[in-house]
């Protein structure tokens, strides 16, 4: 009995880690430029489809496709940033939301046109399938791999932000964009790179997530809400906030759907609204 609860908690945590990889980029870019980017899920979807295509038509192994998913999503984000986003940095929340919703609509329709509306499964390598048993406990191998990857990514992000020159620039731009500009930092360039990295991570998350949450053209919309919850509740530009919130969200979602399926996602939204009313800037806000 206890063992089943633990396994369930672990599943929730693994799901949360996936959400973390998907949304951490959005958190940092939103915190830096205050740009409401609702198209973040589109980049995750690009990563997912890259992996599916490479495995299916080119016969690449799963692991080899992951860096390409990262690069593909990052490259797409650079193009969009240059062509569209840049024009609206000083526009209102409303214009930014609508522009990016427009991008989501286009990407959903394009994905449905190219890949069809069905789910796109992937064939995982054999050593990632199956479960490991520790006495009573049983953990999915792929979920363990997911948690390990997310922890490595978190470590790299924290190290990169705290101990590199570029990380210091990012922190400066988040904390006070105008001051950073005044000191001669090229905020736009820092933002472009951060944006590309964050979108790349989303692409990686999209590829890693196929096994857990599936991949279909509506992905960009379906998981947008989860990403936004992670960012809003965690607090803008806070890696710690995104990590804790994503883990919490994953556990709450899995556990509530398991024990009280009759109220479904209600618990999740309720928790989100209460947290936001309690702490409008997020739990771990860098700024208030």
């Amino acid at each position, binding site marked *: 009995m206890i063992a089943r609860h633990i396994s369930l908690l672990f599943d929730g945590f693994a799901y949360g880690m996936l959400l973390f990889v998907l949304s951490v980029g959005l958190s940092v870019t*939103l915190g830096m430029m*205050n740009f*409401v980017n609702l198209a973040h899920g589109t980049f995750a979807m690009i990563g997912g489809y890259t992996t599916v295509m490479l495995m299916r038509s080119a016969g690449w192994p799963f692991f080899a496709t992951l860096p390409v998913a990262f690069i593909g999503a990052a490259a797409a984000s650079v193009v969009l940033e240059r062509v*569209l986003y840049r*024009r*609206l940095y000083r*526009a*209102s*929340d*409303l*214009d930014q*939301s*609508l*522009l990016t*919703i*427009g*991008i*989501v*609509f*286009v*990407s*959903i*329709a*394009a994905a*449905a*046109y190219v890949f069809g*509306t069905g789910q796109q499964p992937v064939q995982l390598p054999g050593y990632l399938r199956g479960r490991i048993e520790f006495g009573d406990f049983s953990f999915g191998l792929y979920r363990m791999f997911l948690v390990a990857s997310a922890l490595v990514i978190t470590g790299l992000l924290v190290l990169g932000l705290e101990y590199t020159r570029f990380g210091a620039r990012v922190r400066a731009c988040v904390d006070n964009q105008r001051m950073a500009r005044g000191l001669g930092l090229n905020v736009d360039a820092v933002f472009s790179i951060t944006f590309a990295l964050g979108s790349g991570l989303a692409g990686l998350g999209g590829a890693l997530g196929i096994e857990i949450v599936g991949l279909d*053209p509506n992905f960009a*919309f379906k998981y947008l*809400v989860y990403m*936004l*919850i992670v*960012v*809003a509740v965690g607090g*803008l530009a806070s890696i710690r906030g995104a990590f804790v919130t994503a883990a919490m969200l994953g556990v709450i979602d899995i556990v509530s759907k398991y024990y009280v399926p*009759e*109220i*479904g*996602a*209600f618990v999740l*939204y*309720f928790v*989100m*609204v209460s947290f*936001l*009313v309690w702490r*409008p*800037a*997020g739990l771990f806000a860098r700024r208030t």
Partner: protein
Amino acid sequence: MSVTAAPAIGTFNPRDLLRAQVKWRHLETLFWLATLLPFLVAPSYLVLGSQIAIAALFALSLDLIVGYSGLVSLGHAAFFGFGAYTAGLLAKAGWGEPITGLMAAAIAAMVLGYLTSFIIVRISHFALIMVTLGLCLLLYEVANKAHWLTGGDDGLQGVRMWPLLDMFRFDLYGRTAYAYSLVVLFGSFLILRRLINSPFGLSLRGIRENARRMPAIGSPSSNRIRTVYIISGTFAGIAGGLLAQTTEFVALDALSFQRSAEILVMLVLGGAGRLYGGLVGALIFIVARDQLADMNPQYWYFWLGLLLIAVIVFLPNGILGGCARLLARWRRRA
């Protein structure tokens, strides 16, 4: 915006400014007369017409908070759906009188607006977008899971309306439905037009321009925001009630995020913050959807997305804003 150039400070009287805006223009009269045309020239499109009128009312209500007060809501469908379910459930329970049913929808949405307004004034920017979205998703989940009451996914069936005013039955061709929706739309429009061109309306525009400075000149921002949020929710509830009554059905979709996003798109397409923006946007949006969606709903989203991107990038004030700019340029040249 459309505020005319203020005369020298000494002679400036804000009431003159408001009075000038309240005056009806010929173009407006023409616009409302044109809404009667479908009865004569396109009787087969009356059903579509009532859909347009309902969406126009919904967009108009959203314009109050998005266009005039500068708050973004991604969850306005909460009021729309709440009104729709209220009117639908009332009719299903045996009271099918349309006008009192519509009032009940309005009151229900008003109460919902009152309750949520306490939350809304405390937050802003990104958190506000998320909370409005979250509240809408919450209601959606409640309606989805309360299958015994709302029919869940299958929608609310068995709504039977009595004839309007005991005289006009809701027929298959949508004649009564269109006339009814149009009258409600026009009545609501008159009320909201008056509201916008009042000192209260001016204070809303002040909040949009600078919410922190308004209290300094004696206008309490958060009270104004609460009031306008409740009013906006009420009219959105009326629009929802209209939809439930004229179609005698409530789909779960009335509470969905897509509905909130669509209405925002209509408003911005037409031009936010200019009353007619929502009406024109709803007209163009629904006619375009009717024409394009026949192909395939997926393609429709493609064109909708492109249109949205184009409007935001090239026509920041919507179609009406673009027209106004062209007109101004033409006048200057003439």
